[in-house]
Each structure stands twice: as C-alpha cells, then as structure tokens.
C-alpha cells in the first residue's frame, strides 16, 4: 500500500473539487514564507495522532515556524521523522465530521462511512454513531444518498448540495486513483462560508494499481525497514519479524503455516519470505541474500513442489551458499514435484534434507540453539 502524505492527499482532494484550507508545503528552510494569519504547522508523516505527539503546532509568524520545525524535526513518530511540513491557515468551524470510502471485503463493495463525531479515531466512535452505505461502483453515488445522510445526521438542508458534491468527489478519487482508503477526518462545516472543508486527509493507494499511477510519488515507503524496502523493489514478498530463525518458503499460506509450526515448537521466525511459484534460480539467490542480511541463527527452507520444482530450488540454494558462504546452519524440507532429484543435489553438496515438516522444524530449532 502506498500511503500518501497529508499534503499529497489534499492536492488530490483539491483537484477533485473538495475545499481544503489555504496552505503551502515547506520542504526546506528557504521556503518558509512571511505570513500573519494564525496557522498550523503540520509534520508530514503517515501516522495518526500527530497533534497529541507534538507534530501539529499553532504558529503566528515566520520565526515561530522556524522554531517549531527545529523542535518537530527531533521527534519520532512510530519510527518516522518529518522532513516536510504543511503550513495551513486556521479554519474556524462548528461541526466536525468523519467521512471515508474504503473496501468492505465481506460485501465486496466500497463502503461509505460517515459520522458527526469526527475529529477522533474512527475506532473511538461508537458504532451507533457511524452510518454505513454500500456503494455499487457500477452505479456510483446516487443523489438520494445525500438526502438520506442529511436526514439521518440531521444536517441543515442547505448542506445537502455540498454534501452530494463532496461524496461524488470522494468516490471519484477512490475509484479513479485506485485508492484503498480515502478518509477526511475531520471534515468541518465552516458556517461563515456554509461550506465543507477537509482539514486532514488520509489516502492510501493500492500497490497493485500503481502501474497506472506513475504520477504519484511514494514518499513513505522509504521509511520501511531497509530490507523490506529492498525486497519490495525486487518483487519479493518479505516481512521482517522478531525471531532468530530465518524462513524461506513458497506460497503465502505455506509460509504463514511454517511460522505457525515454529511457534508451536516455541521458536520464533526472523522473517516471512514467500518465494512464490518460481522456476527461476535467481529468485532463490535474491531471497538468500536478503536472509543473509538478517543474520539468523539458522535458516529453514520449506518447499512444497507443485508449480515450483524442488530441484530448481536445490540448485539455486547451492549456488547461493557458494556465493554468500553463510555462517548459519541450513535445514531444508522438500516435498512434491522433483523431490528425489532435489534431495540428491543437496546430498551431494553435503546438505541433508527432510521430507517431513515436523522433523525438519525440530532440527532447525536444535541447530539454531534457540532452546
């Protein structure tokens, strides 16, 4: 998932016709402007609760901005640090709404969530205060939506039209930009202008759809664990975990099951690495290189040969071992397509392999010296 920073999200909102406060983005000290209106300086990091953590500061002039930037730059937000800031005019307002569109996996349809209790986490809003509306993407937002919502939320009639425009814009962003989530929290009512204004934005674009959004820059993945980032760039499904036993398996389900079996034996995996259905020995070398960098106590390779051929994995493994000369022990479990050939290849290179998963797991735990 590609998480957009607040200002990127607001650029999208604005482009689709949703009103956002007047603002400028500050990426370095030279770009700080002179100004007089009371404003907020907001750290551009993809996490919630920035305000509570000192990431949003009220400022009145350039000097205060400079000082605030110095202070915020020292802060860590769930591991993220801010290197860009949004300087945004304060917007006086009465009502704060929560509104979002995301995917409801159960109905397999987009769902619109809206609440009058905005400004706090959606998780903290009582279910009875959240209204949910399924959207059929072949039909889009119907006019009656805003009438219905206005009635259910007891909104003044004058808002019905702007609400309808807002919902249409929000849905257009969701669909055309391939979003997983478009959230405005809070969306506020500025009674002077009788308009709805988005004070914050949270937009997440689907990874798999990025091929049709070359114009979107992913600023947040650089904060990923460096190895996870490397894996992402190589197209390997890899998650860093806390344990000492390295894991390479094929297929997401089998890889998860492998971690579970280790856990069942009171051992923790150091990673999740799904080789996928591959017949490319190079992929195995790349996977091995990643694991090598995690410095595990032992490596467990768990392969069920179906589409993947066991002997291809064995060949790749031998090549990788000679290339990286790892210091850790390796236990291989192979089953299925070309299992015999693979076992022979490993044996002639001095590596014992197992067919039984439980036996292999016990062996790797023993060699890792975890317990």
């Amino acid at each position, binding site marked *: 998932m590609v998480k957009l920073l607040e200002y990127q999200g607001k650029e999208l909102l604005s482009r689709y016709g949703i009103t956002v406060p007047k603002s400028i983005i500050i990426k370095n000290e030279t770009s700080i402007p002179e100004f007089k209106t009371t404003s907020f300086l907001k750290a551009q990091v993809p996490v919630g609760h920035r305000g509570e953590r000192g990431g949003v500061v009220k400022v009145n002039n350039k000097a205060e901005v400079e000082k605030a930037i110095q202070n915020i730059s020292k802060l860590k937000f769930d591991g993220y640090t801010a290197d860009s800031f949004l300087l945004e005019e304060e917007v006086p307002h009465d009502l704060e709404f929560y509104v979002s569109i995301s995917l409801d996996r159960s109905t397999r349809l987009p769902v619109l969530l809206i609440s009058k209790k905005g400004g706090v986490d959606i998780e903290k809003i009582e279910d009875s205060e959240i209204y949910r509306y399924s959207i059929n993407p072949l039909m889009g937002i119907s006019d009656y939506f805003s009438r219905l919502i206005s009635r259910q939320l007891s909104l003044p009639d004058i808002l019905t039209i702007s609400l309808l425009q807002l919902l249409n814009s929000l849905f257009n962003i969701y669909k055309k930009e391939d979003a997983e989530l478009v959230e405005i929290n809070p969306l506020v009512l500025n009674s002077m202008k009788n308009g709805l204004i988005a004070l914050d934005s949270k937009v997440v674009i689907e990874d798999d759809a990025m091929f049709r959004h070359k114009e979107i820059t992913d600023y947040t993945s650089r904060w990923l664990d460096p190895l996870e980032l490397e894996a992402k760039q190589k197209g390997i499904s890899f998650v860093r975990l806390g344990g000492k036993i390295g894991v390479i398996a094929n297929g*997401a*389900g089998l890889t*998860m099951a492998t*971690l*579970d079996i280790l856990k069942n034996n009171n051992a923790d995996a150091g990673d*999740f690495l799904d080789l996928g259905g591959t017949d490319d020995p190079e992929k195995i070398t790349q996977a091995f290189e990643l694991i090598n960098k995690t410095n595990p106590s032992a490596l467990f390779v768990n392969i*069920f040969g179906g589409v993947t051929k066991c002997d291809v994995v064995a060949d790749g493994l031998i090549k990788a071992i000679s290339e990286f000369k790892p210091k850790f022990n390796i236990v291989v479990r192979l089953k*299925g397509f070309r299992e015999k050939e693979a076992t022979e290849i490993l044996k002639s290179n001095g590596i014992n392999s197992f067919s039984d998963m439980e036996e292999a797991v016990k062996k790797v735990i023993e060699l890792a010296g975890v317990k």
Partner: protein
Amino acid sequence: MVIILGKESKIIVQGITGHQGMFHARAMRDFGSKVVAGVTPGKGGEKIDNIPVYNDVDAAVKATGADVSVVFVPAPYAKDAVIEAIDAGIKLVVIVTEHIPFHDVVELVLYSKIKGARIIGPNCPGIASPGLSKAGIMPNMIFKPGNIGVLSRSGTLTYEVVNYISDFGFGESTVIGLGGDQVIGTTFIEALSLFEKDPDTKAIVMVGEIGGSAEEDAAEFIKKSVSKPVIAYIAGRSAPPGKRMGHAGAIISRGKGTAESKIKALEAAGVKVADLPINIPKLIKKQLI
C-alpha cells in the same frame, strides 16, 4: 464437482502462448481435462501441442463450444480478458493471475453476477476434481479420487493439505483454491454451499488465513446451512498486525482479521480446527466415524 466443472467441460486457456499458460495447458490435459483452445490476441492460427490458438475468445467459443476459461493474462490486461470471456458466454472463469487491482475485481464480480457467470480467483490455483477435470495450476500428483471437499484461500498450502489427505488414505471429491486477494469471485460461503449440495462430498476441509472476515462469515453460514462435517485450519496465528503476509488479503488491520477470531468463530459453529496442517486427516477420520 459436476455442478461447475465436469468431465465434459470444455476449457480454453487465455494467455496460452505464455510460459505459464503453455505449461499448465499441458498439465491440465494430462490430468484429463478437455483443453479445447487457447486465446492470445495476435497469435491466432498457431498451435500449442495441437491445441488451436485463437485471436479472441468469441472465435474460440464459436469453434469449440468452450464453457470454461483459465486466465493467465498479466494483471494490467486481466480485467479486459475476463470481460471478453464472460461476453463470449463462458460460464466459469478461473483467474490465476496475481496482482490484479482490487477495483477491477470488484467490477468483475458484479459483472459476472449480471451475466450469470462464475469467477474463481483471482490469484488462485483453480479447481480440480480427481478423475473428472482440472481448471487451473494445481499439481496433478497430489490428488486421489475420494469424498473430501477442500476449499482454501492459498495455493501451496492447499497442495500440502491435499497431499496429507491423500497420503493418509482419503481422497478428494473437489478441491477449490479461492484465491489470496481481498476480493475474490467465489467466497467460502458460495463454495461451502456448493459442497453441501455435492453428492460426492462427505466432509469438507476449509483452509483459511488471517485478514478479512471470510472465515467468520463462513462460520455463521456453516452454523445455519451446512450439515456435513467441516474441518478447518487457519494460517497466520503468529503473524504480526498491520503487515501483508504475502497475499494481498492476508493482513490484520485495525485489530480485525486475526487467526484467534476466526478459530473462535469456527469452533463456535461446530467446526473442528486443526492446530497444524498435518493433523487435518486425523480430524477428518474422527468426524467420519
């Protein structure tokens, strides 16, 4: 399962001239499937192992009477390929392709319902009934004809489980890999209701994983509408929250979609949940006696 795939089903392969398409067209034929044609735009007139290739699905269907398609077309073009298949009258579309944007799949699912077609997948290994036919990429050697129905969100783990079931002395009526994405064409509930009606299936094995609430929804359905014994395994008990575990759909988000929640819901519905895949056959045995 004759209801959706039988010995007489005529299969086309969309993307047959690619490496995967070619390999699996052969493997399906070796399994006993009737692979009648392939489709690759611009490659019409060629032959892959005597399987005629057409430029479009309509021509392939008109020439062969095909009713099933297995789609290997790359993700950016997959939506178009599936619409083409459905428009040509294909009734079962198995989408093997991985990484199709979920927005595309949401629309495909709605469209398939309008046109009365069924989608299995995407990002799935397909469907196989030993002795009858296979549409997809599951390895042939793991199967044994029998009366256990298997449905699963994963690929390799399904093979592992089917292999355990066959090795133990049971066999399978039908195995369906539903796919690992957030949005899939055939859900657990839809597949469970097919197995409930299938006279060849005596017990059902369900392989789930973290993410979403498909297993919880299935548990509700089982409680009300499934009379056959159900045995389950849920992968991902040790997965951390907020991380995608390989499959696009395998993510615990905002505290929802944990293995614990799924196991609890299934057990409350009377489903026997195995702690390890290898223990599934023992639970089947207990349930069938």
